[in-house]
């Protein structure tokens, strides 16, 4: 009985969102959604039309997806690495580390649209190649936006140790260094995934927005902007759909990694 309930739970967490998605697409394709929203088929084209555009322009769309993915994942990697290191520094110097992280969280409050143009100007001399310096600027935007979540969570993972674990380590006369490698680091692993659950969707959004301001014209976000301004809504929606798929795909990859790496944990 218990087993059945558990498997139903697992099934329903996937089933309900899919059911909801299918319902929305049905409402959309039948035009009922347009009536509810008061929209027309020009500004909100039918799903099959969006699908056709994606299918017909797959090579071009994939080029833009690639550019956006490099920015999102590059920034996510650098930001998470930096964030984790900051967490480690804060955990070693706990006296002021916690206060420091609180202040560093202020970085999270800076809107992407404010830092993107600033970083564009700051990176003008990085490379004579506009594509490269533009890419650097965009990656830095994502780096900044994904640093804090990781540093705060890494700090918690490294410091919120179960008292009995710490007592056990002390009873073994373990050095601080040993405690760090054998206890703190493994303890922080679930917290890394907590941080990534926030910053993975966040990195895609930051990448899309940073492309709006970039010097070199490429990327899914940039295409959304260009096409909306040119009143090409069907194409803009095609890129919006692709952006959604990218976010979902990255999140699924993260969940798969998480289930493998945290197997056997609570």
């Amino acid at each position: 009985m218990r087993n059945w309930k558990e498997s139903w739970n697992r099934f329903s967490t996937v089933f309900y969102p899919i059911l909801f998605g299918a319902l929305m697409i049905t409402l959309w394709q039948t035009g009922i959604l347009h009536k509810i929203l008061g929209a027309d088929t020009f500004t909100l084209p039918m799903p099959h039309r969006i699908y056709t555009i994606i299918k017909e322009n797959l090579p071009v769309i994939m080029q833009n997806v690639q550019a956006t993915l490099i920015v999102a994942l590059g920034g996510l990697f650098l930001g998470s690495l930096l964030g984790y290191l900051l967490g480690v520094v804060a955990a070693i110097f706990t006296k002021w580390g916690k206060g420091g992280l609180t202040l560093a969280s202020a970085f999270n409050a800076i809107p992407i649209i404010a830092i993107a143009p600033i970083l564009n100007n700051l990176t003008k001399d990085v490379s004579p190649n506009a594509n490269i310096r533009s890419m650097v600027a965009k990656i830095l935007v994502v780096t900044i936006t994904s640093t804090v979540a990781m540093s705060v969570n890494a700090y918690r993972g490294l410091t919120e140790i179960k008292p009995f674990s710490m007592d056990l380590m002390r009873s073994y006369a373990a050095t601080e260094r040993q405690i760090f490698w054998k206890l703190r680091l493994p303890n922080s692993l679930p917290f890394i995934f907590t941080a990534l659950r926030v910053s993975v969707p966040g990195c895609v959004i930051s990448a899309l927005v940073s492309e709006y301001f970039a010097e070199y014209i490429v990327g899914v976000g940039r295409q959304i902007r260009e096409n909306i301004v040119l009143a090409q809504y069907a194409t803009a929606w095609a890129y919006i759909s692709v952006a959604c798929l990218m976010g979902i795909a990255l999140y699924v990859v993260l969940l798969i990694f998480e289930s493998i790496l945290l197997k056997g944990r609570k």
Partner: protein
Amino acid sequence: MRKGNKGALMLTSLVMALMLVVTAIPATAATYYSKDATVKDVVVDAATQGKVGNWGLGNEYEIQALLSKYGMPTTYLSQAFDMDGFDDDSILLASAMTYNELGLVKNSYQGGYNYGDKVKTIDMNDEGVAMLEDNIFTTDAFAKANPNTVKAFLAASVKGWAYACANPEEAAQIVYKYGSSVSSDHQLYMAGEVKKLVETDTKGNPVTAYGKIDDTAMQQTLDLAKTYIKLTDSVAADKLQTLTLDDIRDSSYFDTATAADATLGTPEKTDVSIQLKWLPQAQFMGYYVALDKGYYKDAGLNVTIVPGGGDISETTAVYTGQVDFGVTWVSNLIAANAGGMGLMEVAQIFQRSGLVLVYKISD
């Protein structure tokens, strides 16, 4: 001192250091162009270096046509809405509107870069790649349902433009009164330059009928649009190639509204609005003058002027009926109609292209 402060300092400085690493590399000195350099020399050199700038978002077609004319690829750098990129040499050949960015580049007033005559320009009209810009448009359906409103609006707007061009200083003051994103000095400069665009055609000949649709220039605009507007959506791309002048402009309202013996009739709709393409500035002085001098009221209309700015899509605003009229560039209207909007130009206020490419010259 709180215990946290030292840590905060260290953490912030770490992030700062990361940002500084990328800015520490010194800028390389750029060489500018000789004042006798030909257009071809400048365009080819800047394009080869990949330092031609434009704002994109539908403003790029004339630049692409010019690049093609000189056998260069049609790629360009995305230019911000200021001229900092031109100032710091990351863009050697920058896009500028004669009435706006060029004034900022040359002049020393607030927001200006004070280059004076140390810069030269390449004019799209002279190069034969001019595309028409600021017009007055509405939807075909609105025009057909409210012909008298359209005629009354055109007659009053044209009167406003005529007064503004005769009195640019007063017009600049009026615009400044209605809200301005730039200084009054720049507004005055802009009024003087906009006057030239309204009163001169692409060939440099004087225009007497303000707002009249010049079919030759419209055809050139449409032809260039068909070559350089690249649409991802194959349905829209195919439709673009089939568009003719009759799909994008209707001169009949203007012609009857401005005829000597014009009888305008009673407007069907009296509360109307016009969506500007950009922030309130002398680029749109004719409408502000018509409003301020009561020309719209005299025509039986209660007009609201809706400023644009940023990524506002004036074509969408008119298409969805949020506003009745709009000011856009003809190329934007063509792209929108290719996408399926039934927009119709009813007057062409700017008779020549105001877009130039500006470059610095060596002393």
